[in-house]
């Protein structure tokens, strides 16, 4: 039997596969289709203090082997989240990580403070990297000092697992990773979406109402992998790999490049079974290669 579990901070995930924030709703949308308890965990849609309507449509566009989105952090706000969603998680066997977003340090803190009062939550993923809001998040993610300060403040409020989600739209992602590590983050997850754009040449309009959006899906996998490898070689805390993962082999690439776990995003849109299938495929790989623990593949790429 292969031991698929991974420990990140103080949380044990039964396997290294999570769903990525904003791509799996609050966890109840397709529960009739897939058994969430087969996953290591879910990361919720990013929660802000006040509800957010999100951006005007069109919000999404397909691109070659990927898609652009400009959802704009549409969410029900922390109050409704606690009232309506959190009880779902009582019956969950998978770990639940709440993604937290905000425009100011204070807003992030308020969201975390509210959620701290409730059980059934295993940790936070701090989204300092959403490219789709006019203010907020992304500005932390490109500034190492602000990112560090935010983490310092949040650490005062919670003993739960604190993951910081990084943006790839920077010259040096490992600089930001080091800053949040120094400030006490337990883990970094990467990448959030890349800034992209598409134009409909017939109408001459950008395909996304807000002109730019976040690029995700298989097209970004090589970029995400390079960032994960870079960060892995610079920080000591665990890294969660995200970006274009659809198959077990994709996930293994990230694990081999140094990720302790992975999150699956866009793949769930076109293949709802993808996250579960990835768990199975990683397991098969380990079995075929006579490995006992999934942690054995972390960072094992052979460099000569």
């Amino acid at each position: 039997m292969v031991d698929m579990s991974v420990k990140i901070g103080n949380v044990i995930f039964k396997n290294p596969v999570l769903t990525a924030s904003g791509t799996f709703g609050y966890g109840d949308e397709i529960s009739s289709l897939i058994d969430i308890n087969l996953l290591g965990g879910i990361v919720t849609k990013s929660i802000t203090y006040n509800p957010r309507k999100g951006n005007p449509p069109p919000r999404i566009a397909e691109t070659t082997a990927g898609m652009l989105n400009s959802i704009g952090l549409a969410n029900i706000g922390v109050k409704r989240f606690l009232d309506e969603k959190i009880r779902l998680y009582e019956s969950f066997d998978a770990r639940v990580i709440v993604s937290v977003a905000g425009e100011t340090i204070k807003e992030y803190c308020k969201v975390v403070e509210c959620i701290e009062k409730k059980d059934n939550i295993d940790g936070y993923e701090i989204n300092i990297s959403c490219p789709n809001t006019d203010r907020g998040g992304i500005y932390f993610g490109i500034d190492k000092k602000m990112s560090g300060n935010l983490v310092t403040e949040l650490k005062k409020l919670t003993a739960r697992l604190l993951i910081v989600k990084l943006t790839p739209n920077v010259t040096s992602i490992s600089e930001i990773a080091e800053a949040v590590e120094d400030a006490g983050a337990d883990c970094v997850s990467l990448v959030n979406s890349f800034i992209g754009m598409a134009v409909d040449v017939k109408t001459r309009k950008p395909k996304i109402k807000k002109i730019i959006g976040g690029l995700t899906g298989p097209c970004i996998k090589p970029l995400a992998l390079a960032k994960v490898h870079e960060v892995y070689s610079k920080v000591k805390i665990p890294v969660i790999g995200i970006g274009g993962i659809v198959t077990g082999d994709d996930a293994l690439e990230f694990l081999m490049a140094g990720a302790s776990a992975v999150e699956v995003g866009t793949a769930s849109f076109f293949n709802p079974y993808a996250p579960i299938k990835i768990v199975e495929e990683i397991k098969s790989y380990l079995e075929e290669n006579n490995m006992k623990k999934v942690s054995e593949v972390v960072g094992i790429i052979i460099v000569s």
Partner: protein
Amino acid sequence: MVLYDKKGEIRYLNKLTDDIYHLGIKCPEISKRCHPGQFVMIRVSENYDPLLRRPFSILRTISEEGIIEIIFKVVGKGTKILSEKRRGDVLDVLGPLGRGFNFSDRSKNYILIGGGIGFPPLFFMIDFLKNEKKDIIFYYGAKRKEEIFFKMELQKICAKLVLTTEDGSSGEKGLISDVFSKDLDAGILESDSEVFSCGPNPMLKVISSICERCDLKLQVSLENMMACGTGLCQGCAVKIKNSKDDFEYKLVCKDGPVFDSNIILWEG
């Protein structure tokens, strides 16, 4: 809501015109549980280009044989690939998705208005209601004669079938919305009717303002760009009037694709 993601085998794929196809897929679980106005998301390729599934309205189900049918038009690379499939090929089919038409107000007469390739959900509706002995008036607009499908079936089931084509090759020449509007003004239509419409969004907007003017209840089926079809991505938002001066976004895939037209904030 029960949902299935199944491998469906293509049972037939018939070319109806140059670019319009009729597809039958064996999908017993989905076939059994469809309501008119619902749709499926079909993955046309195992590779990642195109990446996303494509949404198609259900035209009809043959539940004894476990088949669902769609009619689709080739407009881009996804539908092109679909049109090149063969009998026996297997497709990933996710469904049934969305909320279909609401028939709870059975006191009303039903007027159906279909434009072009927006016709399938209305056909499903007629098929669904065929044993109800309801008088259905069907307005059917197409580009040209060849793009009017199932005319015989429609004539058999509907109390009245009004056809228009843009080139005048069948029925009246012109737009179906104009004819509908004229008929309303001429008083030919019962005023306690409920209208159901599918077609391109600009047409729906026109129908919507006609119905508003004449105080007719209208349900429309919207077609937005979709990534997931299941409410995961929040991509298919449509602006909906709120109680106050405010608005909110609803999801076409989950809260729709059928909406009461009077709550939609039409744009563009």
